[in-house]
Every structure is written in C-alpha cells, then in structure tokens.
C-alpha cells in the first residue's frame, strides 16, 4: 500500500540521544531509566505462563474478591493527576510576594506605633490601628483576588476531564460485566471493540481484525493492527499489546490487563512530563524584575527619610511611622491586581477565540515566542485521511481537501471517472454509522479504517449516496485486504452481469491488469501506459500521499457463486481493466498556511516536529509553508547539482529535514548548529525525548519556544517549552495536563491570535504599569515635604490606599483594551533581554516627569485650599508641630482667626481630599497619554477605547462619591471639597497632555535621536 511500505518502521522506541551537558544529562539518565522500566516481557510470555504470572484465567477472568484485593493494593486504574501545590501554599505565596512583605512590615510598624502610643496613654492614635488593619486587608484582599484568579484558571482545566467515567467490559468469574474502567486491576480479562478506548495496558489474547490508533502515543497516524502474536522484542513495537487510552478503531479483541494506572506506558510518559521542570514565564520574570526594583526603591526612600527624620530630630517612633508611610505611598499596592486583571481579561478574550489559558502568565508568553515547534498530525493537519489526488485518463486531478468542501472540484464528465467511482464505491467495506443523514459528510462517523473512510466519504460527496449504489450492486463475494496480497476485491451482481472490483497497492493492482481505460475506451496496457502509470505513482508518492490503485472487470453472470471461498477469488481477478489511482493524505487545515505565513511575518520561526515519516512531513511542511516555495533541502540541492550530499554547502539549503535516527547520532551542539544554519526545519520520526531535546536546543539558542502537540508523546516537550499548547479535541489528557494553553478548536491559526494578543498585552501592560507607577510620586512627595518642610500633612495613607486600590484600578485595567499602535504582527518578537516590561526611560519618564507634574498639581491645589481657608503658604511652612498639637485649641491662621484642633483636622482632611482630586485629575490626563507610546493621541482616537472612557467616568464618580457621601470625613477622611478646587489641577493635566504630545512628536520625527533614546519607553 504505497507509502506505508516504503518506510519500514524503524526502532521507534526512544532512541537514546547523546546526552547534553549539565541538567540535561541528569534528565537524560532519568529518561533512560524510564526506558528500562518499560521493558516488560509480558508480550513474550506464553498464555499459560501469563495466567500463572497474574494468577488469573484467560477463560473466566479474575475472582471478584481477588480483584477487590488488587484494587486495594494497586489503587484505581487512572492516571494520578500531577501533584499540584497544596492550596494553602498557593494562597500563602500570594501573601508573601516582595511587595506584600513590605506591606506586612508597614502594617507591623503601624501596630507597634499604635501599641506604643496606647501604652503612653495617648488618645486619638487609633489612626495607626486603622491603617494597620487597612494594610493587612489590602494584602489579604489582593492575595485572595490573585488566588481566585489562579483557582479559576485551574478550574477551567479541571472541567476538561471526562466527567462520565469510562466503562470497560470485563470478564470476572466467567461473567461479562460492565464496570468503571478505573476499577480494573492487573490480571483482569477485558474485551474491547471498535470505538472503545483501551482501558489499561492489555496483552492481547485473541483478536478479530482489531486495529488501534496509537497516534497519541507515537504520533503515527496509521492504524495499527493488534493480534495475539508477539511480533517484536520491544513492548512498544509488538502487536500483542494494546496501550492504555489509545483508541480501538475497529474489530474486537480480548486481552489481559498487565498494567494499570500510572504503571502503564502512557502513565510513565505522563509522569516523565510532570518531572520536567517548568520554566518561569517571561512575564513572570519581567514582573519579578520590576517588583524587585520597586521594593528596593521603596526601602531606599523609606530608609533615607527615616535617617533624615532622625537627623532633623523626630523621635524614633515617629521616624518609623514616616518610614511606614513612605513605603505605603511608594508601593503600588494595586499593581499586581491590575496585572492579574489585565492578563485574565486577555485570557478571557483568548478563550472566546478558542484558546484557553491554564496559567494566566502564559497569556503573554506567546507574544514573546520566537520559535514554534509544531506537531504535525492534528495540529497542522486535519487528522483524517482525505482523497487529495486522482489519476485517470492519464491526468492528475486534484480533489477538494478542504474541511467544508468549499474548494474546487475536478472534471467528472469522463467515462473513466464513472468506472473509477464505481470501483471506489463498491470495493470498500467501510460504512456510515446509522442515523447521521443530517450530519455533513465530513463529520459523519464511519466504521472502517482511515483510508476506506476517506474513500467512502469521497464517494459520498462526489458520486452521491453510497448505500444506494451498493444496493444496486449487491455483493456476491469478497476478499478482504491482507498484508500478503496487498489488495482487496469484491464481486457484485449487476443485472445480468457480475462486476469484479479490486483496489490495492498500485504495483500489485497493475500486475493484474491487461487493459487501461482512457476516456471510456479500454486500451491495451502497453509500455507507454505503464510508464505513465509509474510517473503518476512516483509523483503522488513524492507528495507524501498514500496511493491506491483501482481496477475492474465485467464478468458473465454466475462466474462467481455466492459463498465462494474468498481465497479462490484472486484466480478470477486477472486481465482486469485499470481505472485509475487515488492518492490520499491527511491534508493540512485550510487556515494553517496563512497562519504560518503570519507567524513568519511576525518573525516567528515555525519548526515541524513529528513522529511521522519524513516524506509526508516534508510534503505537509511544504504545503503549509513551513518549507517555503523555492527553499531546498540539502538533498534537493544535491539532486539538482548532481553532487554527493556531503559536498553540499549547508548555506545553500534553507530547509532541512532531520529524522529521529539522524538526531540520535548527533554530537551535542550539532543540533544547535543545524538550527542556526537552516531557517526552515522539519524533524520527522522523533521520539518524545527527542522532542524534548529539540525544544531545549532552541532554548539554548535564546529562543522562547512554544510547542504545540496533542499526543502523550508530546507532553514532555509541552512541559519543557516556555509555553506548551495542547489540542483540546484531539489532545490527550497528558498533553493537556502538561500544556499551558489549550486550543479548543485544535486550530493552529488560533496560535496566531494568541501571539497577537500576547504582544498586545505586553504593550498594554507596559502602558498600564507606566500609568500605575506615575502616581506613586505625587503620593510620595507629600510625605517628603511634610517631613522636611513641616507643612500640615497634605495626603494621608488611607487616601493613598483609595487611590491605589479604588479609583485608579479601572483606568489602568481599561488600558488592557487599548488597540495596538502599529501592526504588531509585522514586528520581530521582543528580545527578552533588551525589551523589558519596565525599562529605565519608562520609570524616569513616569516618576521624574509626569509624576513631578502631578506633584506640583497636588501641591498647588493643596496650597490653594489652605490659603482660601485662611492658611497662607508661607505660614504653612514649619507649622506642623503646632498644627498637630492636640492641646492647641486656638491656633491662629494668617488672618488672626483661631482654630481648634478638630477644626484643623477637618481642614487637613480637606487637604487630603483636594490632593486626592488633583491626583485623579492628573491621572485622567495620564491615562489618556498612556494610550499611546509613539502615536499622537489624535491618531489613536481619543475616545475609541470605550472601556477607557467608561473607566474615567467611573473614576470621577467614585471620586465624587468619596468626597460628597455623608459620613466619609469620619470613616475614610474624605471631606466635601469646594467646586473650584476640582479645577485647580487642570492646567497641570493640560500640561501633561501637551508635554506628552510634544514628546511623542519628537519621538516620531527623530527616531534614534537623544530625545527618542531618553524619552521613548
């Protein structure tokens, strides 16, 4: 049968690759251990020995009591989910980040200050207690929030697990029972039939035409025959073992359970995957990077002003409280929540586009990805054999391989096609399952193997209802396909004649033909036609397609009697008329070529890594554009130049196909060289371990690697990758467990969406963080001025917490909805070393420029509010000690009026509120300028991001509520402020807008200039 035979199955088991150095070596050794463990010998044992080994009977099965005992001993027959972190540890981690620790320290200082003041009998120091409670609440609430987000995304995955327990047919004490598959034990006698999932590792005892799909284990898309004979030393190769969780496609078999649960082959690979350590996501590295910086700066500022306060002569406790206040002011409390929300918003958006993210941070990883290692079967291809080409009338016709039959069809007017289609229809044992009349043909379920299914569907679509045609030509006798004959034939009654139809491996079919039909004429099969046939066969085979030949012959009625021994049929089948060739392939998904092209424009390299044959792999790679048009492999170059392969300069060949066997023979470091030399790579016939090695090599080259796959064999690589992408429909549980992201529609094109969203969220997070960081300066400066110039405190800690966690959260999250400034899919992936999330210009611009403007705005409004109430700016300087004296009830203002302490306190709250409003006003300007980093606001559209507009309105509303809601002064220290104080900071807001436009103009006009370098973040 064409291709299948041209690639003898080599030792497919994990060929030991040369161990890379360091950590890799340890892993390799472990993998080798794993390999050794797989050396079960059950397949070599004779049945009686097997019975003895497992104390069971191959006729009656286990005794119930023994089974129960074994179930107790071995545990249920299911894969143990990878051991997760305990929930309390996960929660604890949320409470113990860098910033959170600082907050804990701040809260502790508050409590100590409260305790000391209370001890001194000082009343009215409850503020510190409130603040401590507020700080702890902030940490706990943001911790809960982060935990909830994490919990939610883990839950999405949990929902993937099959809720309905799988059933298995088991024979115990001679009775056939249906039990839950997880109750199976070693030694159980089970029956499987087409459509079942194999419930455990099973040694086959008897089988009738049993075929299994091992693709999730080996990546092989061909169905594998299972029979009782031991055909190979390796348990992975032998035919008499069926593996846990593979599908039985057709036939029936009875077998003895030899391994259950985690001890199955699949279980071992899955636990291998869980042993591979997870890389930190790039965004996690980025966030850690800047949290460290911020925490460091907070401590630096706090300590500096602690020292300053001590030098100025404040008491120790007071200085500690200053330290605490500075930490509270400087730490962006709401930032981590903002980042989490932004990421989860993107995750939600991706989920709508069928990408489900397991780990929130993985949302961004695709955006940084520079290499995608993609599995072929099921990811790039449709994972279903489809008729791709036909050869009849000495011409190659192209069939429609699109998923929805939207492509072009071929000319069907020829007489030859009538014959060929009839042979295709009749010489086929596959049939549709009943009750699917309303289902599109491509989606109907079929009983039969992959190629017969393909032919059946092809016939149904091109000719019409197959069952009707079969009814008109009732089957008289048939010879099923077997590997010796390599053909199948059947004889049908056709009125007063009989029609013999035959299909099989083209060379075998041709042997039996004496004529060929061309345009309805039967012509003798001479050398010329044979040459044409050979040409077409080679051509189609070269495209990685599986080719079948079809022929037929009209016989007089009664030539073959009903019930004739099938073995006698080949004798009749001579002197046939050759009708044509049909070539099938698992075709690429329609969306994949465009997606691959998009990846390339986005500077992402797509590498194919498959367990399939090199020729098929190369053909598909070429079809989807992984090997682009005009690119040659060294073999192609050698063939073109007619030189031996060794003389080919690797630089001449853009593409290269490397097989698992070649990979196994490579010295360490060679693979990296190859990856560098050839931009277009295809790896074929690779083992799970080799996939791992390929991923690691790419990572050693500095790439951020995404791996897509569906099989268990992909799961170690999925886990090792910076981001593993599993297929939701075809994917095995092991793959889904190992992956960070799941494509619900199994569509590679969704990855491109992921890349786009990942890049967008990186840009938008940058904007969000810039926005969030800015206000830390106007929050910090009041304290600095308070300490150094002794003015009445302009902004309180509680108010700061409100800014951080209440009003400014919405605008900063709304920036996540901002659209991209330029075509991000035309840029190269970011360089994780150079393009940081938070870089120096971003911090400098936010802190020292916009933050400074905001501070000035705040102080302007503060001094205005003080002066209008009677406290002129110069009087304020140095006023603090008397202002804060609780006994001072007649403090004179600039006009000679006398104020009680409480009146001053409310005035101070007024200042807090005024400063708060100033920051809010400036933050509105800030959020507007953060919409773009390079483009003018007018180019981006001021109001196009509706969420942002809503967020601003919401922010102002909350501001109003805090100011004017009765009761606020005594609860949260907000006072109703005068109308005009809202407008005092506006000139500064305007300044921010104008200044940033000037900055952007400079950046756009003079790329690479000093201005660009210093001010573009």
């Amino acid at each position, binding site marked *: 049968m064409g291709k299948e035979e041209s690639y003898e199955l080599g030792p497919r088991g994990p060929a030991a690759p040369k161990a890379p150095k360091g950590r890799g070596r340890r892993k390799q050794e472990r993998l080798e251990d794993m390999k050794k463990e797989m050396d079960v010998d059950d397949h070599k044992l004779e049945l009686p020995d097997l019975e003895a080994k497992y104390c069971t009977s191959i006729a009656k099965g286990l005794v119930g009591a023994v089974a129960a005992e074994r179930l107790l001993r071995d545990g249920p027959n299911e894969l143990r989910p990878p051991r997760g972190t305990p929930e309390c540890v996960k929660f604890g981690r949320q409470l113990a980040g860098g910033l959170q620790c600082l907050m804990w320290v701040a809260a502790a200082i508050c409590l100590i200050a409260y305790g000391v003041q209370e001890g001194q009998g000082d009343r009215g120091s409850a503020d510190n207690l409130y603040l401590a409670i507020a700080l702890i609440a902030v940490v706990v609430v943001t911790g809960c929030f982060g935990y909830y987000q994490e919990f939610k995304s883990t839950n999405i995955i949990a929902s993937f697990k099959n809720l309905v327990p799988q059933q298995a047919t088991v024979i115990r004490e001679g009775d056939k029972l249906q039990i839950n598959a997880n109750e199976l034990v070693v030694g159980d006698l089970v029956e499987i039939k087409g459509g079942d999932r194999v419930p455990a590792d099973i040694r086959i005892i008897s089988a009738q035409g049993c075929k299994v799909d091992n693709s999730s284990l080996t990546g092989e898309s061909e169905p594998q025959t299972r029979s009782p004979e031991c055909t190979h030393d390796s348990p992975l190769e032998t035919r008499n073992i069926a593996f846990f969780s593979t599908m039985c496609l057709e036939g029936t078999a009875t077998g003895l359970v030899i391994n259950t649960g985690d001890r199955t082959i699949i279980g071992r690979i899955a636990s291998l995957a869980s042993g591979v350590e997870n890389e930190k996501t790039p965004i996690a590295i980025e966030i850690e990077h800047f949290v460290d910086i911020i925490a460091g700066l907070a401590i630096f500022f706090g300590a500096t002003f602690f020292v300053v306060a001590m030098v100025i002569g404040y008491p120790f406790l007071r200085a500690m409280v200053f330290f605490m206040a500075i930490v509270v002011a400087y730490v962006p409390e709401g930032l981590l929540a903002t980042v989490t929300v932004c990421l989860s918003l993107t995750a939600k958006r991706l989920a709508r586009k069928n990408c489900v993210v397991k780990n929130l941070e993985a949302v961004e990883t695709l955006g940084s990805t520079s290499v995608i290692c993609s599995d072929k079967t099921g990811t790039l291809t449709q994972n279903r054999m489809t008729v791709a080409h036909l050869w009849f009338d000495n011409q190659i016709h192209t069939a429609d391989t699109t998923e929805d039959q939207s492509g072009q069809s071929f000319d069907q007017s020829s007489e030859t096609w009538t014959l060929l289609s009839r042979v295709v229809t009749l010489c086929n044992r596959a049939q549709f399952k009943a009750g699917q009349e309303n289902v599109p043909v491509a989606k109907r379920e079929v009983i039969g193997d992959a190629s017969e299914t393909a032919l059946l569907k092809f016939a149904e679509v091109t000719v019409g209802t197959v069952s009707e045609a079969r009814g008109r030509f009732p089957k008289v006798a048939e010879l099923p396909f077997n590997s010796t004959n390599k053909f199948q034939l059947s004889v049908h009654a056709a009125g007063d004649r009989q029609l013999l139809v035959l299909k099989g491996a083209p060379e075998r079919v041709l042997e039996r033909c004496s004529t060929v039909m061309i345009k309805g004429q039967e012509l003798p099969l001479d050398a010329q036609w044979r040459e044409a046939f050979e040409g077409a066969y080679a051509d189609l085979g070269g495209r990685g397609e599986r080719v079948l030949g079809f022929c037929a012959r009209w016989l007089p009625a009664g030539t073959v009697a009903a019930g004739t021994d099938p073995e006698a049929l080949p004798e009749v089948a001579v002197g046939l008329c050759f009708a044509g060739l049909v070539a099938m392939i698992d075709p690429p998904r329609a969306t994949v070529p465009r997606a691959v092209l998009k990846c390339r424009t986005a500077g992402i390299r797509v590498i194919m890594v498959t367990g399939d044959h090199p020729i098929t792999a190369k053909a598909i790679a070429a079809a989807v554009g992984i090997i682009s048009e005009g690119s040659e492999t060294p073999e192609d170059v050698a063939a073109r130049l007619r030189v031996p392969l060794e003389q080919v300069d690797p630089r001449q060949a853009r593409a290269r196909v490397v097989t698992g066997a070649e990979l196994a023979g490579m010295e360490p470091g060679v693979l990296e060289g190859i990856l560098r030399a050839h931009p277009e790579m295809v790896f074929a016939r690779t083992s799970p371990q080799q996939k791992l090695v390929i991923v690691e090599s790419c990572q*050693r080259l500095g790439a951020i690697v995404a791996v897509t796959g569906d099989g268990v064999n992909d799961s170690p690589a999925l886990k090792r990758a910076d981001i593993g992408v599993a297929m939701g429909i075809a994917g095995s549980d092991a793959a889904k467990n190992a992956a960070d992201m799941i494509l619900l529609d199994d569509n590679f094109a969704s990855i491109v969406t992921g890349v786009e969203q990942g890049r967008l969220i990186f840009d938008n997070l940058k904007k969000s963080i810039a926005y969030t960081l800015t206000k830390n300066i106007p929050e910090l400066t009041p304290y600095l001025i308070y300490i150094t110039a002794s003015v009445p405190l302009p902004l309180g800690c509680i108010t700061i917490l409100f800014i951080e966690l209440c009003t400014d959260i919405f605008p900063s999250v709304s920036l996540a909805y901002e659209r991209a400034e330029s075509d991000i899919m035309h840029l190269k992936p970011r360089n994780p070393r150079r393009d940081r999330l938070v870089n120096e210009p971003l911090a400098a611009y936010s802190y020292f420029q916009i933050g400074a403007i905001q501070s000035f705005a705040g102080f302007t409004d503060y001094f205005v509010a003080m002066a*209008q109430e*009677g406290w002129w700016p110069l009087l304020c300087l140095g006023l603090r000690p008397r202002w804060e004296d609780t006994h001072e*009830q007649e403090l004179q*203002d600039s*006009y*000679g*009026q006398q*104020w009680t302490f409480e009146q001053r306190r409310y005035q101070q709250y007024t200042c807090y509120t005024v400063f708060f409003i100033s920051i809010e006003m400036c933050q509105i300007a800030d959020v507007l300028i953060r919409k773009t980093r390079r483009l003018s606001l007018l180019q981006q559209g001021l109001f196009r991001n509706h969420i942002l507009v809503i967020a601003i309105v919401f922010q102002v509303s909350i501001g109003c509520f805090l100011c004017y809601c009765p009761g606020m002064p005594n609860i949260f220290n907000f006072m109703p402020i005068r109308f005009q104080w809202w407008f005092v900071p506006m000139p500064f807001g305007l300044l921010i807008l104008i200044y940033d436009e000037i900055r952007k103009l400079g950046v756009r006009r003079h790329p690479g200039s000093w201005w660009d370098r210093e001010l573009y973040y």
Partner: protein
Amino acid sequence: ETKAEMGNKTWADLAGEMKTFLWNPEERTCLGRTAKSWGLILLFYFIFYTCLAGMFAFCMYVMLLTLSPYTPTYRDRVAPPGVMIRPYLNGFTIAFNVSKRSTWQPYVDSMHHFLAAYDDKVQEEKNIECISGKYFIQGGNESEEKKACQFKRSLLQNCSGIEDQTFGYSRGQPCILLKMNRIIGYRPGAGVPVGVDCKVQKGNESDLRSVDFYPGNGTFDLMYYPYYGKITHVNYTSPLVAMHFTDVKRNSLVPIQCSLHGKGIVNDVNSDRFLGRIIFTLSIGK
C-alpha cells in the same frame, strides 16, 4: 547562556556587576552614563523643573492675587467658634493644694500674664468705649484700621486679680477665664449675647455647688463683635468670661464642662470637645 543561568548569579558576580554599574572604567560611565550623557540629562531636568517650578510659582501668584488680605475667602471651617480657658499651662487639669503656694503660683502667674493686655490703663489708652448690647459694626473701606472696644480687667471683679492678687487660688476658690476663638466677621448669638454655664461633666452634680460669672451674668457682650482680622483690628482684645468656682468639692477630681449658649453656637459635637464648650478638671487639695 540560557535563561536558567541568568538566575544563578552569585553574590560576588552581583557585587562585581554593581561596581561596574557604579563606575565602568572601560566606557567611562558612571551609573550607566557617560559624563556627556549625564550633562545632557541633568540639563534637561534642570530646564524641565525650572519651567515646572515657574508654572507652580505663577499659579501660586495668581492664587495670592485673588486672596483678600483682610478677610479669608471661606470661614465656614472655623465657625462656630471653639473655646479656650486660662490659666492654660500644659493641659486641661487644674490641680493645686491650697496650702502649698508653689502648686498654684504658676496658675496665678499665667493669669496675670494673660490679663496684662487687659489692664484698664492699656485698654483706655488703645481702645474706645463702645455701646453695650449692640454689635460694633464698622463700615468703610476694608483696609481701614478698625477700632477695638475696651475690655477692662476690672470688669472681671473678683477675678480681675486686682483685689485678690491670687485670683482666689489661695482660698481654694479658683477663677478660670473663658474665651471664645476669634472668627472674622462672626456675630455670636445673632443679637442676643452668648452666655456661659458650667456643670459637672461626669459624676456627682453636687461636687460643683456654686459658680460666679463676671462680667454680668457670664455673657459675651455684643459690642466686642465682629472681629475684623489681625491686620486692621490690631488692638482687638477678646472679651472674656471669668468663672469663679467658689464651692467645689475638695480633694477629688471634678470634671467640669463649661459651654456657650446662644443662637448658632454648637456645643454638642462628639468629636470636637472644644467646639462651643470646654472640659477641664479641677482638683483642689487642702
């Protein structure tokens, strides 16, 4: 170098990196910048902050232009008035032993010191006599100097410290002066003089048996209001009410609350214990 190796820096590496960051002799950079680069960026920030400070100063200037030097723009935060007592040394507990002069002498000194400005001679010299029972409203230009009404010390009679130089402290009958906080333009009582009364704040009512009030019945005469601010109303002296605690339980802490009564006076705000009232403790020993 892989990402994994990036995470595995030793402290020595870090220190080395830090040192290079502080001063890189090869590229002659300090903190990652060359001298020229530092110069440029500092110049930039100098200009930037100069402009910003200029804008701030301009805003302040404009704001100060809009302010009147005589009347604050808003006075609602400071009204209604707070209350204060004299003697005030360092708290609101007045405790002394009659027999020990040193315990009450500081209070007496404080009273004398405070009342110096109310000496009849000083008052006659600086201030004018006004018509009692009427607000002393002075029209004319805001910037004109305003006249102040005389509040003579002698009005306080027994608490004036003229006859009894110890203000009754030597007899265990202390005088305490009550004054209302000054608020520009404020007319307390809306035509009816604001009165004062005192009671035991918490505890036995009988601890405080009698209080005498001077002048009059313990009212603030209307003629002392309104106040016009410290620039124009230079010689203004706040009117006082003296409370003579002639019979207070001895040898115990007696918390006393004295409050103002009148239209527009607020004396029951929980959070502010000095608004329209004052709470102090008397503790008179033998």
